[in-house]
């Protein structure tokens, strides 16, 4: 069994796409209330790579993902998937949101089969078979008839991953998906997620504000500037796969971390001199712990 079949079920291998973000800007409000959230932001999600976006909280990461998913349109700039500009939301770019966005009134199985069934591509029986195949992979087969409220936080995220994967997206977008989980579950989910990626090699975008998580997962680390956000630096993380947690003690890892921290601190100081207090406090809190080690 090849790695591709291993995760994709019985519908052939998954195909990653390449996403190009070019000079994208977005602002909200008018007149004196106008806020530039994203300005002249360009980067690429390379095919089959796991790109991690990192930046301080409140810097516009969620706005960026709303643009990439097509929920909102940029003021200027272009977003293309495999060369074609995106038009609104689509099943080729699926988002796993911060906290759970499973439909509370549907069971695990109904949530997972929602996409294929509303699009009417296959018979209900075929879709349910494929869903069960995927649910077994993530250890949720016994929870197929439970409602989201009956699942633990970690189970909800796994269910959400499967709900996205069954639609064979070209690009998976994860918006701080493990935020709000306890440290132990979070670590398990990171390990689980990285295995899943290493099996299917879809194009993945992962947004986080945790540096350790970012380097552990990433092929490419995109560091965002403070608001208005744009891509400041791209660091290619050339750590070996499969990734293991013991990697976090290696010299290479520490080297990447040092490199990223220097840039992040520079951004923090810039924010400080421009006087947005709350953001700076967040920023320093988030990174001081990492630095002190």
């Amino acid at each position, binding site marked *: 069994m090849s790695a591709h079949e291993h995760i994709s079920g019985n519908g052939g291998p998954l195909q990653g796409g390449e996403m190009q973000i070019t000079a994208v800007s977005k602002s909200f409000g008018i007149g004196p209330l106008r806020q530039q959230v994203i300005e002249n932001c360009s980067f690429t999600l390379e095919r089959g790579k796991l790109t991690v976006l990192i930046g301080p909280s409140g810097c516009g990461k969620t706005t960026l993902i709303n643009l990439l*998913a097509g*929920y909102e349109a940029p003021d200027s700039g272009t977003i293309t998937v495999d060369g074609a500009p995106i038009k*609104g*939301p*689509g*099943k080729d*770019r*699926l*988002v796993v*949101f911060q906290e759970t*966005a499973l*439909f*509370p*009134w*549907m069971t695990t199985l109904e949530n997972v089969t*929602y*996409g294929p069934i*509303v*699009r009417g591509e296959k018979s209900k029986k075929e879709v349910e078979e494929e869903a069960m195949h995927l649910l077994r992979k993530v250890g949720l087969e016994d929870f197929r008839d439970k*409602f*989201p*409220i*009956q699942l633990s936080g970690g189970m909800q995220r796994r269910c959400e991953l499967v*709900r996205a994967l069954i*639609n064979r997206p070209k690009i998976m977008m994860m918006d701080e998906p493990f935020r709000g989980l306890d440290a132990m579950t979070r670590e398990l989910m990171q390990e689980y997620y990285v295995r899943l990626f290493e099996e299917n090699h879809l194009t993945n975008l992962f947004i986080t504000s945790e540096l350790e998580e970012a380097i552990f997962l990433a092929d490419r680390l995109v560091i965002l500037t403070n608001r208005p956000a744009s891509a400041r630096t791209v660091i290619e993380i050339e750590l070996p796969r499969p990734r293991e947690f013991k990697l976090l003690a290696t010299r290479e890892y520490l080297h990447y971390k040092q490199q990223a921290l220097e840039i992040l601190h520079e951004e923090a100081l810039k924010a400080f001199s421009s006087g947005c207090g709350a953001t700076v406090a967040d920023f320093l809190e988030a990174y001081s712990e990492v630095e002190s080690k």
Partner: protein
Amino acid sequence: MTQKKPVYFMGINLRKLRKSIFSKTTYRGIVAVIATVILWELCARFEVPIIGMIPAPSSVFSSLVEQLQDPAYWECWVVSYDRVLSGFIIAQIIGIPLGLIMGLSRHLRDLSFPTLEILRPIPPLAWVPTAVIFWPTPEMSMIFVTFLGAFFTMVLNILGGVKNIDVRYIRSAQSLGSSGFDIFRRIVLPATLPSLFTGMTVGMGITWAVVVAAEMIASRSGLGFLTWKSYVAGDYPVIVIGMISIGIAGYLSSAVIRLLGDRLTPWRKII
């Protein structure tokens, strides 16, 4: 210790059912009701000022035995229930679609919301004189007033329910390939159900309050009229019977809605 095997009847676990009916909560409730009745009896016997003026449970009880055998008493139940249900159901038929449309269409919300907000604070009972004038029969005017009691609550609850739907649900559904009517049926409707049942529960309470008052003012039948008539006739125990009957009728109506709500939104309450 061995667990007793569950016994099922029509898909219901009978042992569990028995446990929930004969639970400590039930016993405590019964004890509290009996204690209240005893206290009430004592107040009447010892002629405690003000509260002692209420007819004692013993005299109410003997009068109740008479009433239960009188078809006129049951007629009051039927008439009041008829009014409440007619008004309530019409409020659902008009209120639910209106609330949904207002929640979904900004234009219609802008058009109807101000009018609704001006009419809403008018207590349904203030409508009684107008209703009596413009509806051809007194019965219709009673139903209209009861309808008003539930109508505004329904519209506002559903409107609020639709507007508060988490935008991520809509977005997820769009990404997954849903649109238009599909999103309405599979996302908007179920997401609004909990507020719909909240509206129904509150609306049912208001409906009973309105119908009783309206019967006292403008009718010659129903539980409200029974209570009022007994006051006029000086038949004090029947006043108490009328009051308690209204209490029980209201409780039964709310219980049915709660049961229905729990049945239709099983994802909210899971043991």
